[in-house]
């Protein structure tokens, strides 16, 4: 089936996943349109991180369907590498490669995975460093950068692959309050440029301001979802209300 931009970029239907006896995803359905920012919120252990990892096939699902640009992820014949070239991911713990400089971290995947010309990639990588306001830190090793700086390098590293969508997995959860802002600013700029983002976050204010659509998940199911204005002001479900009252 050919994918057209009118169809959801990511289309999840009834996705189920268990780890042993632990049901992590219990029939989740989510649509993400191109250029849309979708925030997924919910208590810890609700399966949010697993959900993201299913989208780029880091975690295989038990049943259901995930389509990314029309390509079925839950297909044994799937070219996982092709999928991952298209789906970027940014992690809570940054996961930069500590033995390579910031610039090298950004250049590695385009050079080795996309087999692109090194000089050309380097120009782009330097531009990306400027974009995340880290020009001058090109030759710093991850260990020499603060958490916020590392996370911005990680975002640049993901951008260097020019993915169709970027998944953000609680990217500010390991940061101290002052540096959270600099990372959120970077994500906001991406969103404004039309990058499709799926963001798992606990930053409610951020989600409210930035998201086109918010999903509230708990115990492996989507409890409620909607545009932020509607979602935050008159949520219908008791569990959602309880969660929001604890957080806001």
């Amino acid at each position, binding site marked *: 089936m050919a994918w057209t931009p009118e169809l959801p970029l990511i289309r999840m239907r009834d996705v189920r996943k268990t780890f042993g006896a632990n049901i992590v995803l219990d029939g989740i359905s989510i649509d993400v349109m191109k250029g849309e920012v979708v925030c997924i919120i919910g208590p810890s252990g609700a399966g949010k991180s697993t959900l993201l990892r299913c989208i*780029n096939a880091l975690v295989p699902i038990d049943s259901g369907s995930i389509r990314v640009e029309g390509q079925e992820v839950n297909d044994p014949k799937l070219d996982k*590498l092709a999928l991952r070239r298209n789906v*970027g991911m940014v992690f809570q713990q940054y996961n930069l490669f500590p033995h390579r400089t910031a610039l090298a971290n950004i250049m590695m995947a385009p050079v080795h*995975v996309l087999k692109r010309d090194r000089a050309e990639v380097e120009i782009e990588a330097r531009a990306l460093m400027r974009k995340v306001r880290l020009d001058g830190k090109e030759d710093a090793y991850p260990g020499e950068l603060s958490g916020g700086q590392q996370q911005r390098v990680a975002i640049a590293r993901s951008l260097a692959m020019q993915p169709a969508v970027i998944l953000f997995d609680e990217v500010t959860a390991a940061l101290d309050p002052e540096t959270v802002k600099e990372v959120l600013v970077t994500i906001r700029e991406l969103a404004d440029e039309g990058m499709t983002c799926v963001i798992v976050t606990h930053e409610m204010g951020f989600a409210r301001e930035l998201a086109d659509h918010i999903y509230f998940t708990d115990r492996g199911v989507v409890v409620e979802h909607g545009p932020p204005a509607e979602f935050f002001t008159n949520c219908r479900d008791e569990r959602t209300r309880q969660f929001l009252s604890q957080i806001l």
Partner: protein
Amino acid sequence: MKSAQIPTSPRKRGEVRAAATCGGGATRGKGGGQRIFAVLKPFRLQSAAHELPRSLFTARSGIVLIFVLLLSVGFGEAQAGPGTPSIVATILKWTPLLAQGFALNIAMSFLAMAIGTVLGLMLGLGLIALTRPVRATAWLITQFFRNAPWLVLLFYCILLMPFEVSIGGATIPLPAWAKSTAGLALPVMANVAELVRGAVQSIPAGQWEAAESLAFTRLQMLRLVILPQCVKRMTPPWMNLYAIVVVGTPLASIVGVNEAMTLTGDVLSSEGRTELLVPMYLYLLTWFFIYCYPIARATVALERRFQVP
């Protein structure tokens, strides 16, 4: 409420452990006023230097060794009958020959280490292979060569390997020292394989995840992300292994290789003086010590430097 600091001296550490096992006691401290209770703090590793068994190659054992050597020379001189050349002179006379033998020890250790490391890296990659049969085979080989006594492996190599091999038209002789080197390389291989496996497993899962999400193939992940980080972690234990191999090379004397140990025996039998026995072997031991001590020092220094803060 006062919380007890974790004391650094080993004697006090025991007390804290004992107090900590009492469990609930920690919370009752509030009413006690002056009583100090141990608070269970997150487990912290003591510095590696304290936890690991100390190496034999320390400055202190070096001083002891040289002291004992001098002492034995002194005793030897006292025992020597009138008219015989002094112990020191005899030792010096044979030093060039012993140096020749020692050079062979070093050459064997180098070769065994080089061959063992190359094979061990491949075997180590087998240990972390995704396919089960490969992993199982690699595991069997590793376990066998890691646990077999070195001397047994040495004998196998001496007895099972031919004295010459012909590749194409050329005939390459395999002298005893070459076969012994092969025998030493086998346990090195198995130990290096374990080092590789351990180092790879010590890399945080996030590194794999990040590399995977960037669409690296498994080979690229290993080559670009995982193994470069392993090199740092593997270097200190690898150097340690080398020091062990060096002191293992005299095993080759049993199968008649003309290395330092064999030559020392030859020297003693040709001199035929019992008072030479102890000083001569201590002299040889000193050679090994002098060679291995810097390696041990460098290993400790590297371990400290690579320690994650």
